[in-house]
């Protein structure tokens, strides 16, 4: 416990990389996050100074003027105009030092980005994230990829209720509001795998609406985009994966999920390249056979309220195993 405390303190003190705190606002990794952090640090020290002065005054008053036998009755002072003016002006002056950089940062981080910025459209759903890259004409879910050192402009909206898109190491949150589009812009300054999650209460599984942002080199980003743009991998004939494709095509899956060339559903996440993602269920579980099988069999038991209900009649274990093999083949 104690050791953890010092680790924590050290981690907080150093600006270091994501490390043990992948979702920390205190470890900024983009210009946007850094601007907020600088401002926060600035205000923090003003606040700390005021805290020390005022609490010290309070403690000194309590100690110095505590009741003692034989102390003469206090002079009944009623006020002091000059002092009132002084302690009205002092906080006002400090606030000017806070307000000026605040307004400057508000306008600097208002979501504007150069025309050649990578554009990502984020759509919040109960309870997962859809990412579209309009310039690349590709759609994916729950894991967003962006190139390092390039401006990124994120357009945020929602398909149902209000959500809030928040990846603390890359910057502050913006609400995803149905019928409205909000923008943030950032330029990530180091490669890495950053986590975020929905920050506006959005119903039963609000806690389970997580996401990851993979910041990678320009060439890796290009390779990722090429893979995403290609059609789904065709399963090898006479394998479990091929049987899985048949199961998928004859089950309710197709009503909600898109796999290019196989099914057109748009209610759930696009699965064309689901095998290439590191997590499933909006960042809840690693993308491995065991979790995938449990997820397909009974999603609501893993994620309360999930719209992907248990299939009726239930799929057989063999069908589920085949489906898992198929989905994993969709790299």
């Amino acid at each position, binding site marked *: 416990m104690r050791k953890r405390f010092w680790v924590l303190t050290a981690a907080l003190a150093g600006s270091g990389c994501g490390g043990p705190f992948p979702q920390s606002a205190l470890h900024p990794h983009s210009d946007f996050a850094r601007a907020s952090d600088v401002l926060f640090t600035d205000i923090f020290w003003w606040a700390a100074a005021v805290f020390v002065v005022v609490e010290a005054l*309070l403690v000194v008053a309590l100690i110095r003027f505590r009741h003692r036998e034989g102390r003469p009755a206090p002079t009944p002072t009623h006020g*002091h105009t000059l002092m009132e003016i002084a302690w009205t002006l002092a906080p006002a002056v400090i606030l000017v030092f806070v307000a000026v950089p605040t307004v400057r940062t508000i306008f600097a981080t208002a979501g504007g980005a150069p025309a050649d910025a990578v554009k990502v459209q984020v759509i919040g759903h109960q309870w997962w994230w859809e990412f579209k890259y309009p310039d690349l004409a590709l759609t994916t879910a729950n894991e967003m990829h962006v190139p390092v050192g390039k401006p990124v402009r994120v357009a945020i909206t929602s398909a149902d209720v209000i959500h809030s898109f928040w990846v603390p190491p890359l910057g502050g949150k913006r609400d995803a509001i149905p019928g409205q589009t909000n923008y943030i812009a950032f330029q990530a300054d180091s490669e890495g795998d950053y986590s975020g999650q929905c920050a506006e209460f959005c119903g039963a599984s609000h806690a389970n609406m997580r996401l990851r942002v993979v910041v990678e080199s320009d060439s890796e980003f290009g390779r990722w985009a090429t893979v995403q743009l290609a059609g789904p991998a065709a399963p090898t004939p006479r394998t479990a994966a091929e049987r899985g494709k048949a199961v998928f095509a004859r089950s309710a899956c197709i009503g909600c999920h898109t796999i290019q060339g196989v099914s057109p559903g748009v209610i759930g996440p696009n699965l064309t390249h689901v095998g290439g993602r590191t997590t499933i269920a909006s960042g809840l579980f690693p993308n491995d056979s065991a979790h995938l099988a449990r997820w397909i069999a009974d999603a609501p038991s893993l994620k309360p309220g999930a719209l992907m209900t248990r299939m009726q009649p239930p799929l057989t274990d063999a069908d589920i195993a085949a489906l898992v093999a198929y989905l994993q083949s969709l790299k």
Partner: protein
Amino acid sequence: MKSWLTTTDHKRIGLLYFFTAFAFFLIGGIEALVIRAQLAQPNGHLVTAETYNQLFTMHGTTMVFLALMPLSASFFNYIVPLQIGARDVAFPRLNAFSYWVFLLGGLFLNASWFVGPLFHAGVLNVAPDGGWFGYANLTERQFSPGPNIDFWLLGLQILGISSLAAGFNFIVTILNLRAPGMRMMRVPAFTWMTLVTQFLVITAFPVITVALAFLMFDRFFGTHFYVSQAGATPILWQHLFWLFGHPEVYILILPAMGIVSEVLPTFARKPLFGYTVVVYSGILIGFMGWGVWSHHMFSVGLGPIADSVFSATTMLIAVPTGVKIFNWIATLWGGDIRGTTALHFAVGFIAMFIIGGLSGVTHASPPADLQQTDTYYVVAHIHYVLFGGTIMGLFAGIYYWWPKMTGRLLSEALGKWHFWLQFVGMNLAFFPMHLIGLLGMPRRIYTYSPELGVSDLNLLSTIGAFLIALSILVFVVNIVRTRRRGQRAGNDPWGGATLEWSISSPPPVYNFSVIPTVANRLPRWKTEHHEPMRDPPGTPPAPIHVPGGSWWPMLAALGLPILALAPLTHTLWIAFVGVAVLLAGIYLWAFEPFDV
């Protein structure tokens, strides 16, 4: 028993408010403990997601509307008429009506925990689950089909009527029933803050009434006030809710500030420093509280200009707040400070409120706030303000006025235990939340990943919450013990300056045997300008007429929850029954002979 049910005596109604609100405070506290137990470790599974969402919704709703506001109301009721030298409030039966509406509204809300089976759901299934802030469009029938949100919005509508009735009552009381000679600038600070609070109540509650009426229409009659597909925007709800919600914050804090402004002078044996400035800054806070609502909405995307303006108005509000704090410290400075439990809590208020105020400045800055809003950082902030602030202030009031209200002094020894346990507990519970939030934990989540690295801090916070629970247990023991063995208080155990200390404890039903004439701000103290007043005689020189009780306020109040059952159960005839009961109550009340 009958005399309590029909009472119109402001003192009895004050005690009813206190014990009812304290019971709801315990319920809200138990909800908080379950929440903290769930979050003690990552991937906790003590309760389900659905239950957790109901718990945090009801914790917030209960603490704001059923605990803090009515606890303040218990002091408005008991103390304000005594401080201004009145025999009762202006409208005693309306006062009883306010209480019964509050009690029934609270029971209506909390009944939702148990009545699931009536709605073809389990117990603990249909309590409100949209958050105390109930953001549209999650609260629309499409996304929240069950009766949960119905309970919430109907319950709040009922409670709003109670607050509005009490608001008008106390404004009229304070403006019209002051003792001869008590000019506005001689009114005690607590009564002044009560007056400001009531003006906020009567102006802010209509806003949420409208917002809730829109939601009610959306849910029951298929309108689209908050539906974006129909061309409206759910953001309308946020504007309306926070237009009410921010003044509400001052409705919660100003009474506690008033209490502190009474307790400090009494125990420092010094008049309140800068009385005029403290009063005016209270009024200013009341006004400015109306111009800051969008600071709850910096992540909504209102644009840089709106964000800048609301940031500036929010920072400005720190000025009158800071002025109050400096005046309180100046009140202590040069005094002869008696370290009573009441003083401990009053000083605790100042010390903790400073922290809440300063963290407030950090989220007055929108770019910084975008990393803080909707995280545990804000949970820390509101608990420093409302627990470290309001609750500490209310406990200062409880220890200060308990002898006046019951005739017996609470144990100082147990009181100190209570204070220190609560002080340590609250800092342990709420301070780590600042870090938890900055490290990336959003609020209102029933579970979190161990990867966030906030597990130890959460455990610490849970331990703190249980320490707070222990401190409240000590307080309950103190109340029970005092009832039997508490030291008799006499008229004035503390040497107070204001009128309530000039009469016996508890005061006779008519309060003042002779209505005092007030010649200055500190009538019972000797200052360089004047001698202390003479207390009213123990027995009235002439008989004093005291009106009897009435059943009709309670009957009228009963009509409201019945009326609310109609939309809840989609049954029209119940509405007619509710209206009939309400009208019958009002009719009988209106034509009740004055002299009973």
